[in-house]
């Protein structure tokens, strides 16, 4: 198959997804969608309530997904959640802090916190709230550990591209007896987080955070589009298996 043909197929999938997202966004206004319950998000809302009541802080770790790599999508999902969480905790005494392992991501987290602070009642923005803690996986984790330990954190959200170093962050959060929700697009990190975090999110649940935290109609529409595309992939795989089977038995 030539690169040009692959490009055409890719364009078709993206175009179909874009159209479906538009349609579902329009339809959502008529009938709100119902999603399966993910307990982690229910507990996150409770943890946010406690952050506001206690006067403690929320820590969002965005991982190290560089913006010019495919891993940036998980970082973008993390930034969307950071924005929503900053809005939800805006009634509290302390703004959330965001740590990241990529410089451009740290700048975006500062911008996100700044915009969210303008929307809050206090309107106070702390430039030190969005931080770069290290540029290598372990220096990033080591730099984020003091934030979890020393800054009156009562809820941690690890959302983005992490490797196995996420276990160190999860362990620190566990020692402080704080709520921890974690998700990564990396398979090894997902396995590690499953073992070490109270509320791990597996696979595409990372990208569902915006929809479950009411970040906007396009977020709920994207979940429905993902479901449709998943069924399409299942059909394609089954048809492929059937064709291979028929070829093997000599019918095709």
């Amino acid at each position, binding site marked *: 198959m030539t690169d040009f043909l692959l490009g055409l197929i890719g364009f078709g999938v993206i175009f179909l997804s874009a159209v479906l997202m538009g349609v579902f966004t329009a339809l959502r206004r008529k009938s709100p969608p119902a999603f399966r319950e993910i307990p982690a998000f229910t507990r996150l809302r409770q943890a946010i309530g406690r952050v506001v009541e206690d006067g403690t802080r929320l820590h969002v770790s965005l991982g190290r997904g560089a913006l010019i790599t495919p891993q940036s999508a998980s970082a973008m999902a993390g*930034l*969307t959640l950071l924005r*929503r969480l900053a809005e939800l905790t805006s009634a509290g005494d302390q703004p959330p802090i965001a740590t990241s392992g990529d410089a451009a991501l740290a*700048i975006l987290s500062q*911008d996100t916190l700044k915009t969210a602070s303008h929307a809050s009642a206090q309107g106070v923005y702390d430039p030190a709230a969005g931080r770069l803690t290290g540029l290598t996986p372990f220096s990033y984790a080591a*730099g984020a550990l003091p934030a979890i330990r020393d800054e009156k954190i009562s809820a941690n959200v690890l959302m983005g591209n992490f490797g196995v170093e996420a276990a160190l962050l999860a362990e620190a959060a566990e020692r402080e007896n704080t709520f921890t929700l974690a998700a990564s697009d990396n398979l090894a990190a997902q396995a590690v987080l*499953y073992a070490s975090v109270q509320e791990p999110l597996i696979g*595409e649940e990372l990208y*569902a955070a915006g929809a479950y935290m009411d970040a906007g109609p396009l977020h709920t529409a994207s979940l429905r589009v993902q479901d449709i595309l998943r069924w399409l992939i299942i059909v394609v795989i089954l048809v492929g298996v059937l064709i291979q089977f028929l070829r093997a038995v000599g019918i095709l």
Partner: protein
Amino acid sequence: MKLKGIFSTVIAIAFGLLVLAGYLFGVNASGTPSLLGQLEAFILNVAVILAGFAVLVGIINLLIVHSGKIRQKQKGAFYSAILVITLFVTFLLGLLAHYNFPVVRSLFSGVFLSIQLPIETSLMALLVVTLIYASIRLLRRQLNLLSIIFLITAFLILVGTAPWPFLGDVPILSNLRGWIAQFPAGAGARGILLGVGLGTLTTGLRILFGSDRPYGGRNG
């Protein structure tokens, strides 16, 4: 939305579309690079240069955060002071090494080989203990079928990968490990990766629609 927000959104969407088009149609039907492909390469090169500047901004941010800790005598200010001092020393060594001072150059590489590398390796070793402890805690936290399957699978992969003392490689265990890695774990991993791929696609589309704007302005 303010004018600045509209401007940045338009630029982000336009360049996002150009890069996407270049990625999809970067090669002509004849197999030669198209104009879109060349444009995509140019934009990505500019993005790499900007990312380099972002590192500089990020390091200044790191310096500001830790200087603030030292000034306010917060908990861990001592470690912040060590970080700031080593940052300046390494920066200076890096600058001098650039101008071909042989002694400084070996000192500069020594900082990485003798300090940073061993520390990161130690953290990796610490991770092993952390994970063993987390596995024990997993059963205490959620004793269910999935957790048990998870731990048994991890155990079987471990014993099938490492050679046994006095026995060396045990064929039954290494075959079992191969089967688990290739079939149940492989199938599960592909399912998860397909989900991640679909999530990546819709996240990218939301940014192209201007719904998610991490570069400022309200999300919608």
